[in-house]
C-alpha cells in the first residue's frame, strides 16, 4: 500500500507536524512514498522523506526568530519601497546548510516523491516543484521537476515565504535556459494550504494530512484594538478558510470513489459479472480521475485548540514549539484511539 504525507503551512506551528511525524515513523514504522509540503511543510517534508526525524526535531525545537527572519524598522521598509517587512537571510543559511548538494543527491535517488507547492506572482498559478520521475499532472496546478540543488533550495525557501512578510524568491534563476528566470515565487499556501488534492492525484491509497489550524473554534474573548491584532486575526481566518476549502475537494472526490465502489459491489451482489462491471466503468478517456481508482483512506490530524506561534506562525519560540511538538504526538495518539478496529493495518 502506497502512502502519502501532506504537511500544511504554518511557520513555527510546523513543530506540531514534527511531533505527528515522529510517532508515525518511530512508533508505527510508517514510510511515505509521496510527500507534499507547503510553506513550513516544504521545510519539513524533505527531511521526513529521508527519515531524518532527529534533525527535524532539533530544528523545530531550538530555532528562534533570529535564526529565521531578520527584522527591520517597519516604517523604513515601507518608505524605502522594500518588497517585504522581513528578510529571510537567516533561514536561507539554515536551508543552504541542511539541504546541501549531498542531501539533494540523496533526495533525488531516494525513491520518495517530494512535491513542494509555491505560487508564482507573475502567473498567479500554483506551481509544484518535484523530484518525481513521473510526476502527477493536473489542470489546477503546474508541475516543474527539480533541475539542480540551487533550484530545490530556492523552491523550499519560496514555499516558506509568506508574501508581504518575507520576500518572493526567483526559484528558476539557476536553471539554464529557463524562459522566465525572473518570475517570483511565494508560499504555496496562498492558493493551497494543504496539498491533499496533489497527493490524491498520485497513486497512493492512504493519505496522512497534518493541519496546523485548530479543530475547535472558540470565539475570541478580546476586542481587536490595533492594526496588528486585526491583521493576526485576519490571517488566522484566511488560513482556516483555505484549509477547509483544500480538504473539501479531496473529500468530495473520495466520496465519489466510495460511491462508485458501492455501486460496483451492489452490481456484483445482483449477479453482474466482474468482467461486465469493469466494462461498464471503463471509458476510453484514460485521464478520467475516477477510473480504476479505489477509495482513499484520508487521515486528518490537527490540533484541538489554537497552537499559538504569532500571525502566520512567524513567532519562533523554542519553548512554545516544544509544547507544539508534544501536542502533535498527543493529537496523533487520540486520532489513532478513535479509529474503528481493523480500519488500518498499521495501528
Amino acid at each position, binding site marked *: 500500500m502506497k502512502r502519502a504525507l501532506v504537511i500544511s503551512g504554518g511557520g513555527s506551528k510546523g513543530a506540531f507536524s514534527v511531533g505527528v511525524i515522529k510517532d508515525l515513523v518511530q512508533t508505527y514504522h510508517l514510510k511515505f512514498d509521496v510527500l507534499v509540503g507547503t510553506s513550513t511543510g516544504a521545510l519539513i517534508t524533505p527531511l521526513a522523506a529521508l527519515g531524518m526525524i532527529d534533525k527535524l526535531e532539533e530544528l523545530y525545537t531550538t530555532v528562534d*526568530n*533570529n535564526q529565521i527572519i*531578520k*527584522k*527591520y*524598522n*517597519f*516604517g*523604513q*521598509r*515601507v*518608505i*524605502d519601497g*522594500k*518588497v*517585504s*517587512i*522581513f*528578510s*529571510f*537571510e537567516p533561514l*536561507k543559511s539554515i536551508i543552504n546548510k541542511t539541504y546541501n548538494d549531498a542531501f539533494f543527491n540523496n533526495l533525488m535517488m531516494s525513491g520518495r516523491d517530494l512535491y513542494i507547492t509555491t505560487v508564482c506572482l507573475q502567473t498567479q498559478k500554483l506551481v509544484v516543484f518535484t523530484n518525481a520521475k513521473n510526476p502527477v499532472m493536473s489542470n489546477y496546478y503546474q508541475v516543474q521537476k527539480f533541475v539542480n540543488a540551487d533550484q530545490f533550495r530556492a523552491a523550499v525557501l519560496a514555499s516558506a515565504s509568506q508574501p508581504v512578510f518575507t*520576500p518572493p*524568491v526567483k526559484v528558476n534563476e539557476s536553471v539554464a535556459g529557463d524562459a522566465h528566470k525572473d518570475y517570483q515565487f511565494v508560499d504555496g499556501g496562498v492558493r493551497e494550504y494543504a496539498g491533499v488534492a496533489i497527493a490524491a492525484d498520485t497513486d497512493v491509497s492512504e493519505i496522512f494530512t497534518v493541519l496546523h489550524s485548530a479543530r475547535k473554534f472558540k470565539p475570541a474573548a478580546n476586542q481587536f484594538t490595533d492594526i*496588528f491584532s486585526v491583521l*493576526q486575526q485576519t490571517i488566522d481566518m484566511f488560513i482556516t478558510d483555505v484549509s477547509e476549502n483544500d480538504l473539501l475537494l479531496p473529500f468530495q472526490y473520495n466520496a465519489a470513489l466510495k460511491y462508485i465502489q458501492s455501486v460496483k459491489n451492489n452490481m456484483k451482489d445482483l449477479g453482474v459479472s466482474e468482467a461486465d462491471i469493469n466494462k461498464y466503468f471503463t471509458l476510453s478517456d484514460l485521464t478520467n480521475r475516477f477510473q480504476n481508482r479505489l477509495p482513499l483512506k484520508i487521515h486528518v490530524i490537527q490540533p484541538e485548540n489554537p497552537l499559538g506561534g*504569532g*500571525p502566520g506562525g*512567524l*513567532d519562533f519560540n523554542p519553548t512554545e514549539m516544544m509544547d507544539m511538538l508534544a501536542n502533535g504526538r498527543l493529537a496523533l495518539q487520540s486520532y489513532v484511539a478513535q479509529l474503528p478496529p481493523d480500519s488500518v493495518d498499521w495501528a
Partner: protein
Amino acid sequence: MKNLIVLFAFLFYSVLISAQASQDPEFTKGFILLGKLSNGFTSGFKSSTPDLYLGGIGLNPQITVAENVLRVGANAGMTYNNKKLSGLFGPMLALKIKTLDTKYMGSYANIHLLAEANWGTAKQQMAGGGLAVELFKKIHLGITAQRDYHFNTWWFQSFIGVSLSKSKESDD
C-alpha cells in the same frame, strides 16, 4: 562630571546587554548623514544678558561603533544668534536607550541620548546633551541643552533632522 561618566557607562552597559539579547533593527551597522534644522534660544539666566533667538542648519554624519547601542559622529553647521551668523563644529555621541517595537513587525522608532561638544567661529565653547527620537530611520526629532563655557550662556534647542543617506539593507 565623574558621576556623569559613571551614569553614561552604566547606561551603555545595560543597553549593550539588552541589545545582544534579541534582534534589534535600530542603530544597525553603517553610516547615516542627517540634515538638521534647529530652533531655540540662548539664556544667561540671572546675568544681564537677555534671552536671544537661536536658529541653525547643519549636517551631522554618524557611524555605528557598537551595534544597536552607540553611534559617534560630528556636527557641522551655521547658527544665527544675537544678530550674528557663526559656524559651529564638534564631535557627538548618540546612545540608544529604547527601541520602540511592534510585537511582530519589527521596530518603528528609537529613543536615544545625545552628548555633544561644539566650538564656534565666534569663540563659543560648548558642551551638553539631549534626547532624540529617530522615527522610521528617516526623521529625527529632539531637544538639546548646551552650556557655552566661554560666554557663560545656555543654548536650548529643538531640532528636526532628515536622513540624507540611502539605506543599504538587503531585500532577501
